[in-house]
């Protein structure tokens, strides 16, 4: 298919149109709204035959997806920020019922103060809910991840919900050119949904969400944990198939000029793109720098990260969120991954870009400069006005 121009939200909506899911639950919240608006156009024009449910809240959107997925329907929704926080209770339930719901999250800061712009507080708040979390750098990835999400979620070894994250405004609203997959190829790649134990199979009645006492709850959580472990090989398998189809190669992490680098920055989402430009600039000046983009955040690719950072002089981990009274969530995972290796580079944390604070090339050069000079503290607040 030829390249087209669209913003990240429109690209995600296009992927949904090509997939034609059975049920879409919708509630508007900035910066996600364009997705459900664009998809409602497809519904209104009969381009999909999805049952499109305008719910009265995000909590109900996720509840609708749970009911629909349990009934045997391929189910999607999208949200951001407070909407994701409002779903928090239901995220755990969707995951514990092993329902392969796919949800796009347009990452946005949490209140208060209220702020509609990008950071990762919302996704990090749902970090431990049992959802697979994939982060996109740009419009192309937001689209590609959306297609792959369904395959990962519905894989028999996984059967877990997947969160497809893209940076609010930076990716959701910025128009970029990207290459979609042909409609028939999408249909073939994603395939027809074959539900497991659907409620609508009334001749073989199943119970979803029974009461669990201490004698079984732990075992059910263990099974969820094991299913999460299965995501890594499934992700690689699906990505390999996707590469064959499109030529676009994706892995759990993306390494950029890392192999011979002495100083490495690690980030997720759109900032990884800016970091690559910074690395290019600094390399021209002779600095041995590189960067790593974490695409799959849950389950966390501990081994891949540890291997990639082995023997580096210093590592800066970029968190677009504050974990009050602790280190950043990405930092704690990266540092934990490194610990199992004998050689621990000095690893520092940068909190940055909260509430949509712009983070440009010059801002990120500071990170490498401070790493090289050894002046970075354990936790640094990049560009905060004192």
């Amino acid at each position, binding site marked *: 298919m030829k390249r087209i121009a669209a913003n990240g939200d429109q690209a995600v909506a296009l992927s949904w149109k090509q997939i034609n899911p*059975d049920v879409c639950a919708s509630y508007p919240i900035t910066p996600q709204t364009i997705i459900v608006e664009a998809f409602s156009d497809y519904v209104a024009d009969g381009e999909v035959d999805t049952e499109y449910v305008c*719910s009265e809240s995000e909590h*109900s959107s996720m509840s609708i997806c749970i009911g629909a997925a349990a009934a045997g329907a391929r189910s999607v929704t999208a949200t951001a920020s407070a909407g994701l926080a409002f779903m928090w209770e239901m995220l755990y*339930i969707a995951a514990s019922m092993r329902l392969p719901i796919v949800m796009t999250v347009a990452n946005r800061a949490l209140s208060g103060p209220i702020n509609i712009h990008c950071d990762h507080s919302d996704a990090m708040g749902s970090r431990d809910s049992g959802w697979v979390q994939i982060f996109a750098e740009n419009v192309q990835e937001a689209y590609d991840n959306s297609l792959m999400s369904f395959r990962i979620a519905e894989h028999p070894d996984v059967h877990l919900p997947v969160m497809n994250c893209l940076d609010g405004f930076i990716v959701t609203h910025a128009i970029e050119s990207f290459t979609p997959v042909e409609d028939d190829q999408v249909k073939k790649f994603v395939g027809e949904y074959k539900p497991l134990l659907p*409620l609508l199979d009334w001749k073989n009645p199943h119970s*979803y969400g*029974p009461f669990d006492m201490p004698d079984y709850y732990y075992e059910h959580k263990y099974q969820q944990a094991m299913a999460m472990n299965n995501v890594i090989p499934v992700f690689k398998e699906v990505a390999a198939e996707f590469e064959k189809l499109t030529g676009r190669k994706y892995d759990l992490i993306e390494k950029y000029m890392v192999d011979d680098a002495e100083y490495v920055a690690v980030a997720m989402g759109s900032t990884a793109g800016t970091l690559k430009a910074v690395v290019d600039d600094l390399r021209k000046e002779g600095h041995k720098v590189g960067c790593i983009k974490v695409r799959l955040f849950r389950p966390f690719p501990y081994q891949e990260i540890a291997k990639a950072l082995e023997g580096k002089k210093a590592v800066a981990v970029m968190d677009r969120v504050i974990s009050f009274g602790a280190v950043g969530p990405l930092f704690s995972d990266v540092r934990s991954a490194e610990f199992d290796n004998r050689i621990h580079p000095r690893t520092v944390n940068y909190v940055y870009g909260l509430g949509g604070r712009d983070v440009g090339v010059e801002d990120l050069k500071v990170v490498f400069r401070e790493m090289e000079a050894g002046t970075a503290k354990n936790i640094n607040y990049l560009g905060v006005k004192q």
Partner: protein
Amino acid sequence: MISIKEMTAKPVRLTEGHRLCAGCSEPVVAKQVLLATDKPVVVSNATGCFEVSTSGYPYSSWNVPWIHSAFENTAATISGVESAYRVLKRKGKIKDDMRFVCFAGDGATYDIGFQALSGAIERGHQFLFVCMNNEAYMNTGIQRSGATEKGASTTTCPSGTCIPGKREFPKDITKIVAAHELPYAAQASPHNWKDLIEKAAKGFEAGGPAFLNVISPCPRGWRYDSALTIDMSKLAVETCLWPLYEYDNGKWRITAESKRIAEGKAEKRPIMDWLKSQGRFKHLMDPKHSALVEEIQANVDRKWDELIRLSKH
């Protein structure tokens, strides 16, 4: 209307062996509701006594597809199930004509579940929502809800030396639901199985959202002998505290015993008969609370008269 003998031959959808209290009205209500349709049915259950007592893993009392996801969202959950049904039927993947029902307590209907209920009704999903109204949060140990009667003593609105139990009248959720102008809403009581099943059957076949509010006596929370549950539900109707009526496509109709009372063919019993039958109102027997008893009676009378007026239009 089929006979009770014919009904006993129908398949059992909620089996014995559940862990509800002796004398609990909830399984009686659920069984009556589930007898009201022969079509395949999917049940969505709100968190509460009924859910925890019928589904303790690895056992289940349910012979029909059943889902419980949370406390406040049973109507949203069934919205999803019913949406899946609609689309899969349209795509030819489902052939059967199916029905959808929610069971929720009064907390999950009047309070925390109200938004999801209102949203699901507004969207017009075809489902029957059954509120098993025992007038408090009984699963967590008898705490006040928006359905608790004025003057009742619960563990969060206890009768003390200064405050005689709950200070507010319950909200009239059946009328609030009817204000959504849905196809069908009704109040029923398990003592009159015929009236209840007829209403549930109308609800199942309403072609859109339907609501059934059922008085569901709780021996633990109301403090009465567990053998008297059905008598208690009957008394609620005889005092007109719990009138039996329906809102059927815009028409209000008083039914069964309530109809006989409205027509002067049966006695309207004083509210004192209701209050003295239960330990939760015991403190109201003290003459110092006679004004409060009169207030409760006046409220019953006012609501009853209003219902008679509505039913005449």
